[in-house]
Structure formats: C-alpha cells, structure tokens
C-alpha cells in the first residue's frame, strides 16, 4: 500500500494498523523489516529549522507502486506499506516509512532496503530547507 500525505505520520501506529487490516496474514510471516526516515535538525553543515517537501502528485504514487511491484516480483513478500510525507515538516518529523513482511529475515531486509533505496534515488520529491542563513534546495547525497 502506498500513501503520500501532508498530515503528520505516526509510523508505529500505521504499521500496527496495516497488520490489523491483514488478519489473514496471522502466523504466515516470521520477519518484519521496517525503515523510517525522519528530519534531522542538522544537514550539510547547517542547522535546519524547518523543511518543505515538494512532490509531483500522480507520478510519485505511480513510481512508488512500481518499486513495490519490482520488490514483490523479486522476493517473496507480503504487501509492503510505504508512506511518504510532503508539505511542511519540522525536525524529528518522520518523512518516510517502509515496512516489509516475509517468511524469512534475509528477504525482509533485502526488500525493505531495495524499496527505500529506489525511493530515495528516483521518487519525485524535493526538499527545501529553512536554515539560519535562508532557504535552500537540498542537494542529492
């Protein structure tokens, strides 16, 4: 499941809700791997006061769904959960959540890592930081 939202993200509540929505999974998975990305108050040498996250509505969801399909073709996993924020964020706010359920530990780790790596390098989001010296677009790592 993919969701792109401007509302605050509570990752642990979202994961628990996803598991409740999939009662039929009970007992079928032995491994859950989760990644949460959140906003640090310091980046590329500057204190970050707040951030505004722009995205390309429509393309973002299409891209994330494609990445999930690729991961599901490659590994035996249950339906992953991917949620990404956009809009205004302050430090410590969760930005992205990726959760993957599988029978096996190695598969869960690999698929989770694949999804977040693909998301980071390709999903159409742009971070705009407010620092002490002004606003700036974040440069890719």
């Amino acid at each position, binding site marked *: 499941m993919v969701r792109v939202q401007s509302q605050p993200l509570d990752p642990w509540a979202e994961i628990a809700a996803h598991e409740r929505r999939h009662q039929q999974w009970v007992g079928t998975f032995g491994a859950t791997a989760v990644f949460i990305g959140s906003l640090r108050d310091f980046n590329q040498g500057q204190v970050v006061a707040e951030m505004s996250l722009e995205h*390309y509505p429509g*393309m973002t969801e299409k891209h994330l769904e494609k990445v999930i399909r690729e991961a599901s073709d490659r590994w035996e996993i249950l339906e992953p959960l991917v949620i*990404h924020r956009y809009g205004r964020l302050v430090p410590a706010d969760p930005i992205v959540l990726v959760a993957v359920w599988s029978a096996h530990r190695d598969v869960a780790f690999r698929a989770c890592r694949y999804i977040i790596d693909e*998301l980071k390098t390709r999903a*159409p*989001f*742009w971070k705009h930081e407010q620092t002490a010296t002004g606003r700036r*677009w974040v*440069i*890719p790592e």
Partner: protein
Amino acid sequence: MNTISVRFFAGVRERLGKEQELIDARGIACAADVWRRVSGDAPAAQVLVAVNQEYALMDHPVHPGDEVAFFPPVTGG
C-alpha cells in the same frame, strides 16, 4: 487536444517562475523541443524529464495530449 501540458518542479519551477504551461504541439517532436520552447535554453544535464509521469530522456518523443515535466535531481526519503 493539440496541446502539451508542461509542469515544473522545485528549483526548475522557481528558476522559470512558473508551475505549469500549456503549449501548442506543433513543431514539437521530443522532450528537448518542449524544454527549448518553455525555457528558451538548450537542455541542461541537471534538468530531469518525465513524459506522462515516467522518467524519460530528452530525445523521448512527445505527442499532443502528453504531460511533460522538468525538475532537478530528486531528494526524497
């Protein structure tokens, strides 16, 4: 529908001072033609392109009714 919808994001949006534009499809064969029309510039390496919401190269064909977007390298996650 003899137009192409063009969208701009982030630094590209700011630099061109526009979010969206409808252009006449006549004279447009590929994404680079769209870029030259909307920016008045040659294609730049740091500008990425999507055609109909999928990544494409600057020489990707563009047809009437297509949506073309230009943006800088992404920084999500």
